[in-house]
């Protein structure tokens, strides 16, 4: 028994504690777990809940666009469809949020598969525009049939997740943690158990080569669309039950640009990029509301930050920091703290030109 625990501790030490990025992630999540206990004013909890929801949303976009290269500009579609589906199940059939959120996410998967059909043959810019078209088509349909969908006002009066905001925060926190971990595993190219990460990245790098290597690219593209739609749908359902209103605002073009901006800011093609982006930008933007004039210049500041990040740190701020603190061993490809001169696993010299 003791041996078993020690084995796990060794594994933890080698796999997590020696990799600076993972240590930071661990500290961050532990900090985030304790934060609601100490800072439980409703505004801060609200920001934490929404940041958690948006983190799931941004990471799901990153899985689709950053890893598989299917740059979708209409990701709000999945968010909105899940929100509307959850609202309809909740209001018309009186289901509890525990049932409506997964059901809403499954509806989003269905929509994701519908979107994937025309998109399968397209790439790059064409793909971006076709995905951008779907939310606008759905907006038109919603407005044309206002009896069922509430039209411009949307549906309101959804039941709350729980009766305390603190509990809501923890539910969103746990769901966010699990979703992000699952998405991290699914896109991990080095994983020895799950191959999807490697295959997604192969499709991004060269789809024809992937096809010629015997990968059923159609199957995996459908898979990534449904997975991404599922997690975006979870976020949408949580959002609907937290805000208690669903409306067409999630279908607007600017809403679909949000995850793109967060992920690009944090670093595209890295799961942590979306989280870094959301947890830096979103609280910052919300915090500006409390300053004089802050509310007016929020939008301008947001656009400026986006443009400047892209011009001066095109890789994103997360990747920029990672490159400062981590170095990959040239021989065994393991990650080391950048202050080391020799690899912690194979003792190879990490940088050329270092003495010893």
């Amino acid at each position: 028994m003791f041996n078993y625990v020690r084995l796990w501790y060794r594994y933890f030490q080698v796999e997590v504690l020696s990799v600076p990025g993972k240590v930071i992630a661990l500290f961050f999540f532990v900090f985030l777990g304790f934060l609601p206990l100490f800072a439980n004013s409703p505004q801060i909890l609200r920001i934490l809940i929404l940041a958690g929801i948006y983190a799931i949303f941004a990471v799901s976009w990153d899985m689709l666009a950053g890893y598989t290269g299917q740059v979708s500009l209409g990701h709000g579609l999945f968010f909105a469809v899940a929100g509307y589906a959850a609202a309809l199940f909740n209001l018309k059939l009186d289901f509890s949020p525990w049932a409506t959120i997964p059901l809403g996410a499954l509806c989003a998967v269905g929509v994701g598969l519908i979107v994937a059909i025309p998109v399968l043959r397209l790439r790059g810019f064409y793909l971006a525009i076709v995905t951008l078209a779907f939310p606008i088509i759905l907006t038109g349909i919603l407005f044309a049939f206002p009896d069922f969908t509430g039209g411009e006002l949307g549906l309101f009066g959804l039941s709350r997740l729980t009766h305390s905001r603190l509990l809501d925060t923890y539910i969103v926190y746990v769901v966010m943690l699990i979703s992000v971990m699952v998405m991290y595993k699914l896109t991990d190219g080095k994983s020895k158990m799950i191959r999807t990460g490697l295959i997604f990245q192969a499709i991004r790098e060269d789809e024809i080569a992937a096809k010629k290597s015997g990968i059923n690219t159609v199957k995996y593209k459908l898979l990534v669309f449904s997975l991404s739609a599922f997690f975006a749908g979870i976020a949408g359902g949580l959002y609907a039950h937290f805000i208690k209103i669903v409306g067409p605002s999630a279908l607007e073009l600017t809403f679909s640009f949000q995850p793109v901006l967060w992920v690009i800011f944090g670093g595209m093609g890295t799961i942590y990029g979306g989280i870094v982006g959301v947890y830096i930008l979103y609280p910052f933007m919300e915090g500006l509301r409390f300053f004089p004039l802050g509310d007016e210049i929020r939008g301008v500041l947001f656009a400026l930050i986006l443009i400047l990040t892209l011009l001066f740190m095109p890789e994103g701020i997360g990747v920029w920091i990672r490159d400062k603190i981590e170095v990959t061993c040239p021989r065994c490809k393991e990650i080391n703290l950048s202050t080391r001169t020799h690899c912690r696993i194979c003792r190879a010299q990490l940088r050329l030109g270092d003495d010893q």
Partner: protein
Amino acid sequence: MLVAILVNGLLYGGTYALLAVGFSLVFGVAKIVNMSHTGFYMVGAYLVFIASSMMGLPLLLSGLLAVIISALLGLISYKLCFDRIKEQGTAVMIVSVGLALLFQELLLLLFGGSYKGISHFVPGFVTMSGYQISYQSLLAIGVSAISLTAVWLLLSKTMLGIAIRAVAEDREAASLMGFNVSRIGMIIMGISVVLAAVASSVAAPVFTINPLMWLHPLVIVLAAVILGGLGSIKGSVAGALILGFTESMVTLLVPKGGYLGGAVSLSIMIVILMIRPEGLFGVVFEEERL
């Protein structure tokens, strides 16, 4: 009703065609997906509003000023933003989204979100089979037609046009033949913004202006460009006219069509792309086929 459909279709179609041609030129020549293209359209409309309604300048002069100032703005943003990162396609696309958001937020900050109207260049209307057609719409249609012809003449008859087409066809070969590819990219950016500003200064008095007015034209322009085939000028004009007429017909014939205009246009785009992924006039290169 027929007259209404025809006039509205030509009005929407002409405006969209001007925008789509500019977008298509920038994409074809400079390889920039300029999502802020309709942002310049919006800026042009607001400049006309500032010059005519707030400063009281004559309308023709304010239109001219709007075109010049937005062209300068376009060139500045090309130099400051696009030129630095033009190798990374996605980054350029996102920067242009950021630029459009910046325009939107600045205009929101300066003028608020309310709808504003600009007085017509030529007041009055003519009644044709029971439907009132304002002279301004006729002017907008005429100006669109003239500008499109001018672009066509520029591309097919002048040295500059030959240079532009050469760069669009093969950047490296054009560069080896002694064309300054970067400068041609800049010129084309200027031309495209001028087209957008012309479209906005003649069409804005017909519509109302507000800081979100770039979104709907952007979607239609993207759809038109894709529909016609990316990089094909003829295709962009055809796509824009198809979508303009679709929008005008849906708005006038279908109940609650005002909401459905964009949806129907985009559905047409998706259906055509499923049948013919390269668009109506597009060419598929063998290595790009999936």
